[in-house]
C-alpha cells in the first residue's frame, strides 16, 4: 500500500505512536519511545517511495528493538541500574541493517535485566505485562518485544535468545518467535549474556512478517555454509515457499521431552499433540523419536550460560551487587561454582549434541516439533520471592546446538492465555521452518488472535483491539 501511495509511513507511524501512548503506560513494553526521530524516519521513507527508491520490504514499516541492542545515540540500559548512563556510539549490526532498509524505529523495548530469565519489580523499568491477562508476565527476557507485537504497536521486533528468550515470550503472548541459526543474524553491538548460546532474532505478528524481517536482518557476510536454497531463491522465493504446504515433510516428535514431566500442563500437551495431528492431516510424515535426556541438555546449556555470564559480570557481582536486582544477582553469581573443567565438559557435550542432531535427527527428519513452555507464565504477583521461580521449557536445546527454532501459537488455554508449539529446523533451513509454521497457522484459520486491549485509565476506548 505504501508503494502505491495509498498509505504513508507517516500515517502508519502516527497510528502506532498513538496506540503506544494509549496503552503502554500500563503494559510497559517500551523503555524509551523516540517519537520525533520515528516521524523523521517515516517521512524519509515516504520521500524515498515518491522518488522511486525501493529499499526493501520493511521500508516505512515501524519496528522496535530490545534494549540490549545498541542504537547510535540512544541509551542501552539492559534494564539495569548499572547501565542507565550507557549511551551507544554506534548501531548494532542488526540495527544498521534495519536502518539501511528504511524501516522506522519507534524505540527500545523492555527486558529482564541483562537478558536473564526472570523479571523483577526492583529494576529501573517495571516488568512488562501480558496483554492477554495483565496479572501474568509476558515471559522473557524479550518481554517488551512480545508485548509490543501482540498489542499491535509493531508488526515486528528484534530480540535476543540465549536459552529461549525470544520463543518463551512469543509463546506467552501468542506471537511468532524466530531464533535463527547461530550466525544467521549478527550479534555485533548486542550486550552479551553467554556468547556461545546468544542469538539475535525476532518476534513478529505473522509468519510473513517474520520472513520479511529475517530477509532484512540476515547477515549477508555470514561466515558459515549457507543453504543454497536460501541464497539462490532470494526474497520472492522465500515468501513463495511459505505457501508450499507440508506434504511429505518429515516431522520428528520427541514427545518425552515435555509429556514425561509431571508439571507439563495437560493443555500444553493437548495443544502440541493437536499440532502433530494437524501436520499429519496436511500430508506431513510424523514420527515419534527420543532425543537425549532433556535434563542433560538443560544441564549443558545452564553450565555454559552460568560460566560465561559470570565471566562477563564478575566485577559487577563482586563489587556492585546492589546495582543488580536480587533475582539477577542470584542467577549470575551462581556461575562462580562452574570450574574450568566443568565448562570444558559442557562445551564438549555441546559439540557432540550439535553433531548428533545433524547426523541422527536431521538425516531422517526435516523439523522437530515440541512444546515451548510446559506451563503458563508466572503471575506478576509471584515475582521477587526469596528464591527464584523455576521455569520448565523445551527451548535451550536449540541454543546449545545452534539450530533454528520457531515458536508459534497453536491454541488458547481455558484461562485465556495462548498455547504454543516449537519447531526446530535443519541448520540454515529457516525457510523450511517458516513453511511448516505457516501451514500450522493457516490450518488454525489464518489470522492469529489478538488480545482485546483497552486503556486502563483513559476515557477513550481502544477501537482497534
Amino acid at each position, binding site marked *: 500500500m505504501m508503494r502505491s501511495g495509498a498509505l504513508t509511513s507517516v500515517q502508519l507511524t502516527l497510528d502506532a505512536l498513538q496506540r503506544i501512548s494509549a496503552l503502554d503506560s500500563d503494559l510497559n513494553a517500551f523503555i524509551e519511545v523516540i517519537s520525533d526521530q520515528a516521524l523523521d524516519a517515516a517521512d524519509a521513507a515516504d520521500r524515498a517511495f515518491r522518488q522511486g527508491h525501493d529499499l526493501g520490504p520493511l521500508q516505512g514499516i515501524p519496528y522496535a528493538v530490545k534494549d540490549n541492542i545498541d542504537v547510535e545515540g540512544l541509551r542501552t540500559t539492559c534494564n539495569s541500574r548499572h547501565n542507565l548512563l550507557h549511551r551507544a556510539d554506534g548501531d548494532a549490526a542488526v540495527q544498521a541493517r534495519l536502518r539501511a532498509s528504511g524501516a522506522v524505529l519507534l524505540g527500545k523495548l523492555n527486558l529482564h535485566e541483562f537478558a536473564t530469565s526472570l523479571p523483577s519489580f526492583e529494576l529501573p523499568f517495571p516488568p512488562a505485562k501480558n496483554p492477554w491477562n495483565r496479572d501474568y508476565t509476558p515471559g522473557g527476557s524479550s518481554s517488551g518485544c512480545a508485548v509490543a507485537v501482540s498489542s499491535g504497536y509493531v508488526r515486528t521486533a528484534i530480540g535476543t535468545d540465549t536459552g529461549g528468550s525470544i520463543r518463551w515470550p512469543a509463546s506467552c503472548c501468542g506471537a511468532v518467535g524466530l531464533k535463527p541459526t547461530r550466525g544467521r543474524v549478527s550479534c555485533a553491538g548486542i550486550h552479551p549474556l553467554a556468547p556461545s548460546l546468544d542469538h539475535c532474532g525476532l518476534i513478529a505478528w505473522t509468519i510473513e512478517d517474520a520472513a520479511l524481517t529475517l530477509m532484512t536482518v540476515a547477515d549477508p557476510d555470514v561466515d558459515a555454509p549457507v543453504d543454497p536454497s536460501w541464497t539462490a531463491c532470494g526474497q520472492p522465493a522465500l515468501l513463495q515457499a511459505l505457501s508450499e504446504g507440508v506434504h511429505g515433510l518429515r516431522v520428528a516428535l520427541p514427545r518425552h521431552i515435555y509429556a514425561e514431566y509431571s508439571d507439563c500442563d495437560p493443555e500444553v500437551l493437548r495443544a502440541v499433540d493437536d499440532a502433530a495431528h494437524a501436520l499429519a492431516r496436511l500430508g506431513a510424515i510424523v514420527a515419534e523419536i527420543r532425543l537425549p535426556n532433556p535434563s542433560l541438555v538443560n544441564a549443558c546449556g545452564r553450565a555454559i550460560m552460568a560460566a560465561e555470564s559470570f565471566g562477563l559480570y564478575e566485577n559487577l557481582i563482586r563489587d556492585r551487587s546492589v546495582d543488580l536486582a536480587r533475582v539477577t544477582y542470584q542467577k549470575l553469581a551462581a556461575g562462580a561454582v562452574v570450574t574450568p573443567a*566443568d565448562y570444558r565438559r559442557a562445551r564438549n557435550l555441546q559439540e557432540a549434541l550439535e553433531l548428533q542432531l545433524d547426523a541422527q535427527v536431521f538425516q531422517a527428519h526435516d523439523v522437530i516439533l515440541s512444546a515451548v513452555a510446559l506451563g503458563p507464565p508466572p503471575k506478576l504477583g509471584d515475582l521477587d520471592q526469596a528464591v*527464584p521461580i523455576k521455569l520448565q521449557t523445551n527451548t535451550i536445546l536449540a541454543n546449545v546446538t545452534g539450530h533454528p527454532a520457531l515458536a508459534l501459537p497453536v491454541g488458547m488455554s481455558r484461562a485465556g492465555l495462548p498455547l504454543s508449539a516449537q519447531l526446530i529446523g535443519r541448520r540454515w533451513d529457516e525457510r523450511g521452518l517458516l513453511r511448516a509454521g505457516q501451514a500450522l497457522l493457516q490450518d488454525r484459520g489464518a489470522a492469529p488472535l489478538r488480545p482485546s486491549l483497552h486503556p486502563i485509565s483513559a476515557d477513550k476506548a481502544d477501537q482497534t483491539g
Partner: protein
Amino acid sequence: MTEGGYAPRASALADRLNAPPDRREGLEAEIAILLAQIDQLWAGADRTAMEPGVPLDGI
C-alpha cells in the same frame, strides 16, 4: 530450599561471594541446582544416544 547434599558447598560459595543476607537463600538454592546439573553433566555426558524414528501412534 537448598537441595540436600549440595547445601554445604552452596553455603561456602555464598560466603566466598559475600552474598548480601537478603539474597543469600535464593543464591544458595541456585548454586545447589547448578551443582546438581554439573554432577549430571559428568555422569551423563556420554549417554546422549537418540532412538530412531518410529511411526506416530496413539496420541
